[in-house]
């Protein structure tokens, strides 16, 4: 079933490439949709480094290992995150089932207490690991929650991009996502975001995301991942950098990774 789908998808992409023309006619919404799909990996194993820098330039560095896998036709992503350093949090793990249509399931394991706890949270736009990145940055949003406008084309680091404005359709959505407007620069060659500018709820410039080094992780399906992401909080002067040190596309990640039993096996 899955393979079949991939083949169709691959074929579709091929058709798209062959015809080439339709790209010109994509609507802003379609571009954003394609953009989120362009980074959705069927499965992966990642080693990454998160550096959080405060307004005085002090750093906090976390090394993390994670595995991800798509389930339910891509509607659910399961993620296991394990801290490798610093030593005091080494082994801390977080298992997330990220559902498209309902609140996530999360379990946390704390090795110092040898304890796993389920976390129930209705929060979505919350920051991730105390960084400037939010969960909303990491996961695809509900497309219909926003209105889109293609503002034009612009080069970002010599890559030609579409400049697209995203505005939440109502205040609840704005509250949930934490921004009143987002201007995204999406590369025409691979649909991966190269730059994004966030405006806070009172309309002021809030954060700026820059993406460097985009790698095609799954060449077969044309899936990409940015290797270097920088988020700057323009209001508070804080920065966060997420660097992917190693990434392995692997659609066959073992299912047992995504169990609380495995979470506790440390």
């Amino acid at each position: 079933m899955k393979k079949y789908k991939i083949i169709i998808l691959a074929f579709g992409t091929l058709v798209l490439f062959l015809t080439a023309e339709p790209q010109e006619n994509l609507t802003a919404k379609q571009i954003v949709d394609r953009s989120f799909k362009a980074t959705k990996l069927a499965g992966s194993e990642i080693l990454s480094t998160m550096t959080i820098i405060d307004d005085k330039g002090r750093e906090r560095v976390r090394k993390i290992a994670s595995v991800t896998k798509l389930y339910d036709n891509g509607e659910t992503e399961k993620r296991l995150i394990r801290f490798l350093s610093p030593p005091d949090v080494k082994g801390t793990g977080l298992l997330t089932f990220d559902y498209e249509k309902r609140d996530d399931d999360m379990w946390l394991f704390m090795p110092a207490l040898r304890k796993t706890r389920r976390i129930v949270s209705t929060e979505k736009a919350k920051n991730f690991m105390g960084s400037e990145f939010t969960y909303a940055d990491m996961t695809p949003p509900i497309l219909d929650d926003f209105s889109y406008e293609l503002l034009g084309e612009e080069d970002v680091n010599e890559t030609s991009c579409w400049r697209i404005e995203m505005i939440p359709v109502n205040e609840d959505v704005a509250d949930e996502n934490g921004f009143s407007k987002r201007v995204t620069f999406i590369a025409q060659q691979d649909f991966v975001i190269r730059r994004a500018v966030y405006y806070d709820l009172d309309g002021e410039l809030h954060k700026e995301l820059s993406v460097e080094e985009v790698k095609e992780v799954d060449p077969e399906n044309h899936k990409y991942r940015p290797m270097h992401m920088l988020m700057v909080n323009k209001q508070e002067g804080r920065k966060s950098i997420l660097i992917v040190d190693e990434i392995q596309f692997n659609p066959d990640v073992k299912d047992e990774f995504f169990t609380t039993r495995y979470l506790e096996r440390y």
Partner: protein
Amino acid sequence: MSGSAAKIVRFRWLVIFGFLAVALIFGSQIPRSEIESDMKAMLPPDIESRINTDKIDELFGGTEMLMVIVKTEDVLSPETLVRIEDISKQMKRIRGVDKVLSLFELKNIKGEEGAMIVEPAVGRIPKTEEQRETLRKEITENDVVYGSVVSKDFSLTAIIALLKTDVSDTVIVEEIRQLILANQGEEEVVIGGLPFARVQVARSIRVDLRRLLPLGLLIMFLFLFVCFKQLRGVVLPFAVVIMSILFSMGLIPLLGWKIHVISVLLPIMLIAIANDYGIHLIAKYQELNYEGNPYSKKELAMDIFNHLTKPVLLTGLTTMAGILCLLGHVVTPARQISVLAASGILFALAASLFFIPAVVSMLPKAKPALHSRNSKRPILERMLRLFGKIVTSKPKEIIAFAVISALVVSIGIFFVIVDTDPNKYYPKDHPVPYAARLINDNLGGAQNVSVVFQGDIKDPRIMNKIDNMEHELQEMPEVGNTTSIARVVRQMSRALNDKDEEGYDRIPDTRNAVAQYFELYSMSGDPDDFEKMVDFPYEHALLTARLNTASTKKMDHVIDRLKEKTKNDQDVRLVGGFGSILSELAHKVVNGQFLSLGLAIFVVGILLMILFRSVTAGLISAIPLAISITTLFGLMGIFRIELNVATAMLSSIMIGVGVDYTIHFLWRFREERQSGLDSKEAVIKTLTTTGRGIVFNALSVIFGFIALLTSSFMPVRFFGFLVVVSITSCLIGALILIPSLCIVLKPKFLEPREIRV
């Protein structure tokens, strides 16, 4: 001397334009002055509590907040909750608002059936009575909001806007006001918080300056007219007052200072004091300009200068000395007022001695005015004569009576309260103290005091120490709500462990466990959630206790205990916070009070000793001052008038101004004794001649300060009341007590010279 007088007349145009030009140039600077409504600026930056509080701001960021307080029967009623949610949401969209804390924004983190649940304190607005009660129970158990964001009886709730750093007070307060107007309902809604208080204070300062100044001037105008019944008698002292106000107010921006709350006293002080010297010159002018006098207008001008230079200089000097003793205060605005008022008086002194004669020498001679004042004379003269009779017949009894009544009133001194709370600026029902009272009584407290810990904050040893100190603080009745990182850890321990588990509601035993708690929190929290409790590298932690009292004395108690507890603790870096600033301000006010008062008595005493070339002179003149001071503080205690930044300035000013009357009396009395009168005759003669001038002088001061009674600020009003009382007591001292002392003690320095050999 007469040479100078001639020069004044010769160069009168130069003198007149010189003074006018200086006044106008300085006056033109006044529009540049800025208003300082921040309480913190009352203390110089190098004072411990300010250094510490600035350090806290540096480590943990500023904590400016505005509160919208909603008061109703039950804040959980659906209509009220809808309104709170609306206000809360719209508040987030106001430019300058960084974050909003309200029932809808703050979290409820709890443990339930093996899971940790993170949800807004109010997630859904209850539809049924049963849901409402469930929600109420949940909130009661949520110590993030219970007793701080919502009152324990659910009649009040606060929607708090944490402000960005670069936001203007006036703009943001107006935005919040509009927000409230746009969401009106049955509930009573008020604004609270320091930015709001500052806006009110700044506005009141402007209102005061606009109201007090014209009122004071009007009163002075009428007073002068009643005294002199002659246009120049009104206009000339009046012109001196206006010029000296322009001069000293213009100095404020020129010296780089700002207008503080108590700066509104400055122009009023000048209205009351700066005319004194001019009054004497005009009185002398009228005295010399009798019917059929032989003098030309220039001679009159020179005569008044020559006659009065010395006494005017002397009284001016003592007044300036008294006021300059306010430099004994550490409190910034008191020091500034000291310099400004002394400069203004110096200017007035110079203008009275030069400008008035210069103008008089130009104007055509006035019609003799004294006959018209004759109708007034009998009342005052009869009164003064009566004083003379009483004094001469029962001097000892008077002294005894004065001492005894001073002693009786002095009991009040033990009840004098020191208070520097800015909420006391206003009457009780004013929005600023009203909001503060609501917060104090129901929402955890309006002021705060903080302790900074340093070291490895994740170390359970330090974490437990913070936790213990927080518990001790919570046990003090003056402490309302407290926040600390230890409290967060505890809260998480309750969410991560079930009630019967070992780790429930306690700091974990290992450093790693603490670190993992934090990591867990940061999984879903904002990066700045802990900003006010622990710094980025986890090297400093802040324990903040909100104080539910407006009394500086009670705050002092908490701060003293905190300092005592943390004195030799290596893990505690400092104690600070706005409450500690208020407390230190109170200490500084008391110390400054003693120092400036002591200095004023000493300096004025020395001046008098030099003036009369006698130690006894200094001591004798100190007696009525001492009695006036005792009465002043006694009455403050009896009337529950607090010693604050404004009223603490009173005694030095009183000494500087009040001693003038004694000087005038002694000066004339000695003259009369030397001209051959015995002491009783001399007393009566002095009282009926110079006594009139003294009464006019004192009345002009009293009337000058009366305008203060209409100030927006309570401390300024009390200042006005007390100045009236204390100048009156100085007047009585000079007219009754000093004469009695002269008769009983017969001090040598006043005796005729022949006998002294």
